[in-house]
């Protein structure tokens, strides 16, 4: 979501993983020493080698070996980055011995699928069922009136598990009427656009600045048999200006992005009459509501799950 518009990335990027064994006091200094040479940041992992030995989880501590890991892109900077890391570790090692870094090539596909085992079908509200394709309909029988969404959570946002997605899904169900035209800003996996199509929308357009999201929305729309209703393109709200007005605009992003959108879009209210905003922490709701009002919207409903809110607004008349 925070990606700027960039060229479509390769299907399965590869990285060189650097792994360094660390004693407890050295984990942070090592992390600090390699931070500027790796991409994105550093991870420090410690497994619990005495699983289940404490009575309360609060008392349970991971005490296994500590590993510090960083990742280098496989490009022309690789050798110089490796050298810089080895130099930094060499100097740190003069204070206290540190084993040489280990290297291993990893691919996006190694981790993109790793957590799927934990993903179970999910029921939202009374009628919506979100089911990953690797669980068959027989394993999770639907009930009469169910609206089932086949959704494989990939690397794009919106897998139905997050409170904000749950609230938005319910809001889309409540707000969508047959024949409506719906815009999903920051579509992610496309879950909300597809849901709108399932509830009878005539047209559902998803826009997202992340190319991974554009791809996911198309694929998920096809899997759910609504490719004729759901379209997708890379971009933001302004890239849907020609198609306005919509009957319903839904944006499940983050408070900061939504406020920027509310403030920065000329005649924002002309995109809908109805708007659903989420991805907002309860503590940020007042700022979003203020921006909504400044943009000519009136708050009509507010949902809350945990400390996340979903705000439903309507173009103020007069």
């Amino acid at each position, binding site marked *: 979501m925070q990606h700027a518009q960039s060229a479509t990335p390769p299907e399965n990027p590869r990285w060189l993983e650097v792994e360094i064994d660390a004693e407890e006091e050295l984990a942070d200094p090592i992390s600090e020493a390699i931070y500027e040479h*790796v991409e*994105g940041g550093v991870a420090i992992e410690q497994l619990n080698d005495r699983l289940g030995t*404490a009575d309360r989880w609060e008392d349970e501590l991971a005490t296994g070996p500590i590993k510090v*890991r960083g990742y280098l892109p496989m490009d022309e900077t690789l050798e110089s980055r490796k050298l810089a890391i080895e130099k930094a570790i060499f100097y740190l090692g003069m204070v206290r011995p540190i084993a040489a870094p280990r290297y291993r090539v990893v691919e996006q596909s190694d981790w993109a699928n790793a*957590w799927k085992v*934990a993903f179970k079908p999910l029921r939202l509200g009374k009628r919506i069922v979100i089911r990953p394709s690797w669980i068959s309909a027989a394993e999770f029988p639907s009930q009469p009136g169910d609206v089932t969404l086949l959704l494989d959570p990939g690397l794009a946002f919106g*897998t139905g598990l997050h409170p904000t997605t749950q609230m938005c899904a319910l809001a889309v169900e409540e707000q969508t009427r047959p024949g409506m035209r719906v815009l999903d800003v920051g579509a992610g996996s496309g879950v909300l656009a597809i849901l709108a199509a399932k509830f009878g929308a005539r047209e559902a357009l998803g826009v997202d600045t992340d190319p991974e999201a554009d791809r996911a929305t198309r694929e998920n729309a096809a899997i759910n048999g609504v490719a004729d209703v759901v379209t997708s393109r890379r971009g933001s709200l302004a890239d849907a200006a020609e198609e306005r007005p919509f009957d319903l605009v839904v944006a499940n992003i*983050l408070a900061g992005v939504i406020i920027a959108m509310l403030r920065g879009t000329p005649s924002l209210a002309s995109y809908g009459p109805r708007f659903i905003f989420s991805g907002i922490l309860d503590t940020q709701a007042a700022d979003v509501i203020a921006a909504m009002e400044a943009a000519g919207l009136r708050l009509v409903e507010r949902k809350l799950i945990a400390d996340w809110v979903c705000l439903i607004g309507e173009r103020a008349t007069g």
Partner: protein
Amino acid sequence: MAKKVKSTVKINIEAGKATPAPPIGPSLAPHGINLMMFCKEYNARTAQQAGNIIPATITVFSDNSFTFVLGTPPTAQLIRKGAGVDKGSGVPNRNKVGKITRAKVKEIAQLKMKDLNAIDIEGAMKQVEGSARSMGIEVID
């Protein structure tokens, strides 16, 4: 039944910039953590602190659920910021690369107090001063 702690993973990344790319993807996915859920939570809760490295310490339970707490930026980063330098010195005893005021050291010590094992602010300041000197940054009044 009590939840069992499977592992802890500490991620040092820039506030508001979590994505499923490395280091988050390859280090959290093998623990069964829903990457998107973590990224969204992290970004929402660190949005105010853009530009700082905000560590997140994630506790993973045996049922693949997780909780995380946010830490404070690393001392070295705060010192570099306070001294206005990009990089510490490679040879800190000989090449001094910058200066930091005692007032700034106190500010950093206050911010880091909960993460340092110091009993009072003076003790925390001594630790921060030590870190500054080891980076080739002089402490001045």
